[in-house]
């Protein structure tokens, strides 16, 4: 009978089967239970979603009819249930079958019950009301004598059980902890774990029983109890310290292979158990030296044992490393763990690489040097084709962000942000960028630009704290009022620029932020007034303009902002600035009126309100070009020589791929400020790099045979700045190599040219110096800087001209005044300094005032530890003729840092038959070793970020200096700082301490205060320069 009913009911799906050409043979074998198969096949054969829907609906209605038919047997019900599950899995609503699932679990035999329970666990969730109907069934089955029934009940309880019904089954389950079968004990433990998760209070009294489970003779039961312990220890580690020993013992046994072989997984003993235990030990040992000490041994052993290279051993290793870094540190273990991380990071397997990054991210704060070790890998991962790897790398970088690398890191984050479309990622990244920007922003302009990017990408989804924090920052500002003004001013400027771009739509929240900022424009009154007085179109808020553009109306529509910004109270006002302007500057009311008509012509205002961007590269470049004189012929020759010499070097350098170099540069800018030693080495790199790079640029230039100004070339090569730092890296690698070549270079040089070409410094600087000092010392107009001592003035001038052959090449350089250092009745010794690019050249002029010859004149300089003094040719003169002047040249190079030092020496000569010795000394200061550093604005920006040592100071200026260019002039002249760029009220300067330690200066004028901000790779240099600058500024 029932069979007939079944046949009728299943006829429908059967029809589909017959229509399947491919389903033939299989369908022929279709047995009672294959109606699911029919359904599956039917669905697979369909081509459209619509057809599938139709088929499933048919199926469901047939199922509905079947299950509610009184004649349906439990066996059929079971079969129906499977099809229900299938339909539900495909995403169709089969909720009318839920109650039947419970019924099946209640009434069926074992097989049917099993499917019933399965259906219940798949269909229902914890708080589903139908679940209550299941409780009685569960209680009954728990009491069953049939093992399978008990297990099924425990299985379902471990998955879903209504919280409020726990007391009904708890005693039964507790009993099961003593069951003779381990499978029952195990499932009972897991059921209790479930209870612990949903209602921890209800199982508090059985904690002691958990301990018994932990000591269970069956590994499975013990392992199951670890789930509970892990959770409990996570919540309260101090409560379970006494168990540390037990966990250690268990882990030791597992690691030592004491478990039954059944638990091996790919010949690794119970990896899941190991990982669970490692995790527990990590929690217990955190910040607890005594507990940690108990675990050191077993951790060491785990590391040692996990040397096979199956994936699962890597899983264990990873957990080991995690634990080792979580607990109280032990250097020996940390070392091993670090090595392990290295294995992960360097692995070609992408999964392991990912985990390596994850591990690095975890340990980075404790051990930043580890990231430094792997910096190149990290850089590679940053450009990895797999976005997941990229993201993990950004996460890592986020953890190491500091004031020095923030711009680079945030830039990378923004790049990723622009690529991704996942909302969760955007929200997350935007939050991080905003957080970093607030913490470490190097300057206002950057901060505002970054926040603009944040708002325009993430405006619609970001956490509301971000705009409100930002606005609070703008509103409350810092202690320094001028700083505040700058910040706000810049914000407004940037919004103007953004809103000037046509057809770009910004997120609502961004517009809100803009309009809020605009609404508080009163601080701009001064500017506006000035602008108006110069006939510039009056101001009108730009959000308003955009609104107008969008709505094609002149009328303001404040609705979008109405809710959040009504408090700022500008609703109804045409322009907050205009209003305050009207009140503040009575004379301008007429102009204020003009704004209605002129409102859309904003070009004038933009100009008035300053710069387009923070680092206008183009401008600075063209500026430099016009200043640079054509290259003197001789420098081109020198350059060729240079090129010949460095050819070998270059060959190597050029083989390095460009990418490689870019990566290395990136590395140096990213990992700056991580650990003290490393910082220095990294910065050192950058220095030597820039140095070497320039040589290369020269080569490039001569190779291509271009005749354009060298400066230009250098500039442009510099703008691909990347070259700077990796060259340094390379430099370090081949230091030895290069050292040798250097010697060779030098010797070659001295053969080919005079000492002049020995220069290590970039040609650029030579050229620039040419332009600074006039080509010849002897030009009339140049004499004024030459204040020779009164008595000898005339003769010196003459004598110098005599000596000009010797000094020929030196004349291109800046030099000091001639100072008499000692004299007697026959001779006078004067001295001056020539600030050559690569060294300080000291010239001692010995003038024979008498009418007699001086014989075997020797000038010697006492050696000092701070300097390396090299005698130039012609320093020992057999004869100084009567009434003549001879020059002694010494090149001085700094060996050790110092501030002031005397250089002493003596002059020994024979006159008639007497030997006379004259001693003298001259003071050298560190300033004598400061040279201009010619770099582009862009390079300045990048170098700036890479320097760790900075000093800031405000200096009051005299009125005459109030304009920035005039304030910078003395710095340029007296301290030999190179002025890179002047942008509005900010100036960028750079110099280097020979041989090549750069120092950057950023200065900004407000009113009569000049804010100086030095940064360098050398810790003492900024202080020294600051002091010198102060002296110069206050002195002038």
């Amino acid at each position, binding site marked *: 009978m029932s069979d007939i009913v079944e046949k009728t009911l299943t006829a429908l799906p059967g029809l589909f089967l017959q229509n*399947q050409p*491919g*389903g033939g*043979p*299989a369908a022929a074998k279709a*047995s009672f*239970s294959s109606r*699911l*198969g029919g359904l*599956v*096949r039917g669905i*697979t*054969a369909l081509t459209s979603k619509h057809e599938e829907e139709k088929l499933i609906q048919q199926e469901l209605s047939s199922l509905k009819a079947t299950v509610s038919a009184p004649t349906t047997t439990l066996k059929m019900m079971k079969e129906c249930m499977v099809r229900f*599950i299938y339909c539900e*899995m495909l*995403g169709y*609503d089969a909720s009318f079958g839920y109650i039947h699932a419970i019924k099946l679990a209640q009434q069926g035999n*074992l*097989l049917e019950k*099993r*499917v019933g329970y*399965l259906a219940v*666990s*798949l269909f229902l*969730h914890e*708080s589903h009301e139908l679940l209550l109907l299941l409780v009685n069934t569960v209680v009954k089955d728990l009491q069953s004598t049939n093992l*399978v029934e008990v*297990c099924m009940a425990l*299985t379902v309880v*471990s*998955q879903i059980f209504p919280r409020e019904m726990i007391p009904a089954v708890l005693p039964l389950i507790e009993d099961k902890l003593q069951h003779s079968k381990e*499978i029952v004990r*195990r*499932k009972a433990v*897991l059921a209790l*774990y479930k209870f612990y998760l949903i209602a921890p209070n209800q199982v508090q009294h059985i904690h002691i029983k958990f301990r018994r489970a932990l000591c269970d003779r069956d590994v*499975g039961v013990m392992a*199951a109890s670890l789930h509970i312990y892990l959770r409990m220890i996570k919540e309260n580690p101090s409560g379970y310290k006494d168990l540390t020993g037990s966990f250690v013992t268990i882990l030791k046994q597992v690691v030592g292979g004491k478990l039954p072989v*059944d*638990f091996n*997984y790919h010949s690794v003993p*119970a*990896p*899941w158990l190991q*990982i669970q235990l490692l995790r527990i030990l990590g929690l217990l040992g955190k910040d607890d030296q005594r507990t940690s000490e108990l675990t050191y041994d077993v951790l060491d052993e785990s590391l040692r044992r996990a040397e096979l290279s199956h*994936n699962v051993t890597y*899983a*264990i290793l*990873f*957990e080991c490393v995690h634990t080792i870094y979580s607990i109280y540190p032990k250097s020996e273990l940390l070392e091993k763990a670090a090595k392990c991380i290295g294995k992960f990071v360097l692995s070609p397997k992408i*999964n392991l*690489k*990912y*985990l390596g990054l994850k591990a690095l991210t975890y340990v980075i704060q404790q051990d930043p040097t580890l990231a430094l070790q792997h910096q190149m890998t990290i850089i590679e991962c940053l450009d990895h*084709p*797999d976005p*997941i790897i990229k993201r*993990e790398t950004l996460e890592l970088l986020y953890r190491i962000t500091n004031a020095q690398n923030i711009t680079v890191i945030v830039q990378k984050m923004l790049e990723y942000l622009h690529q991704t479309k996942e909302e*969760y*990622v955007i929200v997350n990244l935007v939050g991080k960028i905003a957080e970093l920007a607030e913490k470490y922003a190097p300057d206002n302009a950057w901060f505002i630009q970054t926040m603009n990017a944040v708002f325009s990408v993430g405006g619609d989804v970001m956490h509301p704290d971000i705009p409100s924090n930002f606005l609070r920052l703008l509103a409350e500002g810092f202690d320094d009022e001028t700083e505040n003004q700058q910040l706000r001013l810049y914000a407004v400027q940037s919004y103007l620029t953004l809103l000037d771009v046509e057809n770009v739509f910004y997120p609502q929240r961004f517009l809100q932020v803009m309009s809020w900022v605009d609404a508080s424009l009163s601080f701009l009154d001064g500017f506006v007034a000035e602008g108006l007085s110069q006939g510039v179109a009056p101001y009108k808020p730009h959000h308003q303009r955009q609104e107008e553009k969008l709505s094609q109306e002149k009328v303001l529509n404040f609705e979008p902002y109405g809710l959040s910004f009504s408090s700022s109270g500008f609703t109804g006002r045409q322009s907050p600035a205009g209003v305050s302007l009207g009140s503040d500057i009575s004379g301008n009311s007429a102009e204020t009126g003009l704004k209605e008509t002129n409102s859309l012509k904003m070009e004038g205002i933009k100009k008035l309100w300053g710069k387009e961007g923070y680092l206008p590269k183009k401008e600075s470049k063209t500026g430099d070009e016009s200043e640079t004189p054509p290259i003197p012929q001789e420098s081109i020759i020198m350059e060729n020589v240079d090129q010949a010499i460095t050819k070998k070097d270059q060959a190597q350098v050029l083989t390095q791929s460009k990418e490689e170099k870019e990566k290395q540069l990136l590395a140096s800018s990213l990992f700056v400020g991580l650990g003290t030693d490393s910082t220095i080495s990294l910065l050192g790199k950058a220095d030597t790099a820039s140095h070497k790079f320039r040589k290369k640029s020269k080569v490039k230039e001569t190779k291509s045979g271009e005749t354009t100004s060298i400066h230009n070339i250098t500039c442009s090569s510099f703008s691909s700045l990347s070259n700077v730092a990796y060259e340094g890296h390379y430099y370090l690698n081949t230091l030895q190599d290069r050292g040798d070549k250097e010697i060779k270079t030098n010797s070659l040089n001295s053969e080919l040219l005079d000492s002049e070409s020995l220069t290590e410094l970039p040609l650029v600087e030579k050229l620039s110096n040419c332009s600074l000092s006039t080509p010849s010392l002897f030009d009339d107009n140049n004499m004024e800087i030459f204040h020779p001592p009164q008595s000898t003035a005339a003769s010196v001038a003459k004598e110098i001209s005599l000596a000009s052959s010797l000094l020929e090449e030196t004349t291109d350089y800046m030099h000091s005044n001639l100072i008499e250092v000692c004299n007697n009745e026959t001779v006078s010794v004067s001295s001056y300094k020539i600030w050559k690019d690569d060294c300080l050249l000291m010239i001692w002029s010995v003038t024979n005032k008498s009418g007699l010859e001086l014989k075997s004149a020797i000038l010697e300089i006492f050696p000092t530890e701070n300097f390396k003094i090299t005698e130039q040719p012609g320093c020992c003169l057999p004869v100084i003729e009567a009434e003549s002047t001879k020059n002694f040249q010494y090149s001085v190079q700094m060996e050790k840092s110092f501030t002031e030092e005397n250089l002493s020496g003596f002059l020994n000569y024979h006159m008639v038959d007497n030997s006379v010795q004259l001693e003298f000394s001259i003071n050298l200061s560190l300033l004598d070793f400061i040279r201009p550093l010619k770099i582009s604005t862009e390079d300045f920006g990048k170098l700036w970020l890479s320097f760790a040592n900075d000093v800031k100071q405000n200096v009051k200026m005299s009125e005459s200096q109030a304009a920035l260019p005039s304030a910078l002039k003395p710095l340029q002249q007296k301290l030999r700082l190179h002025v890179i760029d002047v942008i509005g009220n900010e100036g960028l300067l750079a110099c280097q301490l020979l041989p090549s330690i750069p120092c950057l200066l950023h200065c900004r004028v407000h009113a009569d205060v000049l804010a100086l901000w030095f940064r360098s790779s050398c810790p003492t240099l900024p202080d020294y320069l600051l002091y010198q600058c102060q002296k110069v500024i206050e002195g002038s």
Partner: protein
Amino acid sequence: MLLFSRQGKLRLQKWYVPLSDKEKKKITRELVQTVLARKPKMCSFLEWRDLKIVYKRYASLYFCCAIEDQDNELITLEIIHRYVELLDKYFGSVCELDIIFNFEKAYFILDEFLLGGEVQETSKKNVLKAIEQADLLQEAIACEASVITLTVSQITLK
């Protein structure tokens, strides 16, 4: 925890956290899309909301689990692998069709292996013993082979 595979058809789903049907559908759709979009050389982990997704492809089937950030990704991969091993042992060289037509068995095996989102029993022998015990009572169900190839299946856990 969530396991799934290519072409967007779900073969098995198991949810270990309570979610509404709507959420489940949405999550499944999103994950299937994301995982299928990934290239073979990419890593087996991906971040999704605040969870990590660990997936692995076996023939035409993708197995996919969602874990928390502090969980161990590699061992999760091994969980998947162990589950496949169990299926393989039970069905004898398991293929996607076995799972499609006997998905309730696949669920039973899963329930013996993972319970409440945690590994219940790692010994292969013990898991299969438990299944067999229950199976002894069950009649043999003919496992049909089908010529219709299914390229995609999904198994969703949690």
